[in-house]
């Protein structure tokens, strides 16, 4: 069950994440705020799903629900066939935040080792895993550097490596490249796609950028605010192999257009 099917033999049919009519109401000082309303979504194994929408549309909140950092007030949500809380205990997912969140007093290698220490992996295994993921994100040779000695893009790659170090088959990313400039972001997007193809992880990716969402995803979830809800779900017809210049093709532009339409429809500019 836990063995990950390799390569093309992925079973896309059984949903890894299944959300049915998920509601989340925050009780605030100004009264209740409906952060998520009636969100239903299936994510299949090995899919790359982007969540896009304006601020306050609940995309991050939904990701936090999957990670059991927030708890829905209504509906049902399962991750790997379990409750989100149990999925977390089973180390089902790695979470990447907008900031790299590397500890300044630990070297890159020891930062990546941190979750392994916490989860109690054997010492010898830790070193091997750190080495493996460092190579996976092209940071081999940087293990002994401190975070401040690395560029922002490298730091973010290190934080992705950290999320990959234990064998989670789901990768949750909350605007991981949001704070980086366009050129670095393009480069990292390309690397992320390669990483996804190689590891076969299921990726949930929150972004503000339409090109980023279209370029990366097999499925794009367009969300709209007040209350946070799904406006449109677009299955991308783009092939798995995606060079950067695919972004100039008519297919790409057509999907981008549909995303933009979805965003516009869901958002009253008043």
């Amino acid at each position: 069950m836990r063995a990950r099917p390799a390569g093309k033999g992925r079973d896309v049919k059984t949903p890894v994440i299944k959300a049915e009519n998920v509601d989340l109401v925050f009780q605030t000082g100004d009264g209740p705020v409906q952060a998520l309303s009636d969100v239903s979504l299936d994510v299949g194994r090995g899919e790359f799903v982007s969540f896009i929408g304006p601020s306050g549309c609940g995309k991050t909140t939904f990701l936090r629900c999957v990670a059991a950092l927030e708890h829905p007030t209504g509906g049902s949500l399962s991750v790997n066939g379990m409750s989100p809380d149990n999925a977390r205990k089973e180390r089902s997912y790695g979470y990447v935040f907008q900031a790299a969140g590397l500890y300044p007093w630990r070297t890159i290698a020891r930062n990546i080792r941190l979750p392994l220490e916490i989860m109690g992996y054997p010492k010898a295994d830790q070193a091997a895993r750190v080495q493996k993921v460092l190579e996976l994100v092209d940071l081999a040779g940087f293990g002994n550097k401190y975070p401040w000695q690395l560029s922002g893009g490298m730091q973010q790659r290190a934080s992705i490596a950290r999320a990959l170090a234990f064998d989670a088959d789901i990768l949750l990313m909350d605007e991981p490249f949001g704070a980086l400039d366009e050129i670095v972001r393009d480069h990292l997007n390309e690397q992320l796609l390669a990483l996804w193809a190689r590891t076969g992880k299921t990726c949930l990716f929150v972004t503000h950028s339409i090109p980023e969402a279209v370029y990366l995803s097999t499925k794009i979830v367009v969300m709209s605010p007040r209350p946070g809800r799904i406006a449109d779900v677009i299955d991308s017809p783009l092939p798995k192999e995606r060079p950067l210049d695919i972004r100039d093709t008519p297919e790409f532009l057509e999907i981008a257009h549909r995303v933009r339409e979805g965003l516009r429809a869901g958002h009253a500019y008043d």
Partner: protein
Amino acid sequence: MRSVLPILTVVLAILALWYGAAVALNARWTLDQAARAGQELTVSQIVSDTLQQERPKLPAPHQVGAELWKTTGAMALEGRAFSKRSLIYHGWVTLSATLLGFAIGAGAGILLAVGIVHNRAMDRSVMPWAIASQTIPILAIAPMIIVVLNSIGITGLVPKAIISAYLSFFPVAVGMVKGLRSPDAMDLDLMKTWGARAGQVFWKLRWPSSMPYLFTSLKVAMAASLVGAIVGELPTGAIRGLGARLLAGSYYGQTVQIWSALFGAAILAALLVGLVGLVQRITLKRMGMAR
């Protein structure tokens, strides 16, 4: 070299002001003495006399310096560094109380901060009391501590150390509460996604994050400890320690002795704070946090 010039300028300005003030303050006595003896004094005679009185209102810097040397270096050269007349001896008495009080105070401050950060009830209840404790003048509470402890047979080093600890726990507690809370929500969420236990969050995240705060507050606490130890020597009429030297000096109008004890205390404080700073530099460097 660049930093030496401004420092020298300031030191020279202070010395000039000091000499000026010494002449102005001590001239009255010189003139009175001259009038009593029926003598007329020139300006240069007045100035030179004001700078070498035995009990001046304000001793001149060179007098304080000479007294400091006479009671420390000179005695050490004679092999009497720990004689009762030596400032080194009195400094050591105060230093031992300071260090013990600092250890108790810093330890208590850290424990309080850990409790405040991890326990809601302590968070609500302890801080106001800690703040209230510092609004009570230490001069008022020091004699009571000494008297109470004396009555149960505790004398000497420990009562002074407790007064030191009373002053030094507070900056450490405040600094460490801030330090232990310095990891942001994202850091804590990340720990949560890994299923970290409270102990792991503390030792792997909160404690290392708080190090810069810890050392900053330890410097303040060290200085406060020294003040506490000196204050602790005042109300008992102690015969040993820098506080005792200050007190004895003021009883007998030995202003030179008061000032030299004062400078002795200042030098001791500078050394102690410098020592904490050194440990800070080494620790942060070893942690990779110094760039």
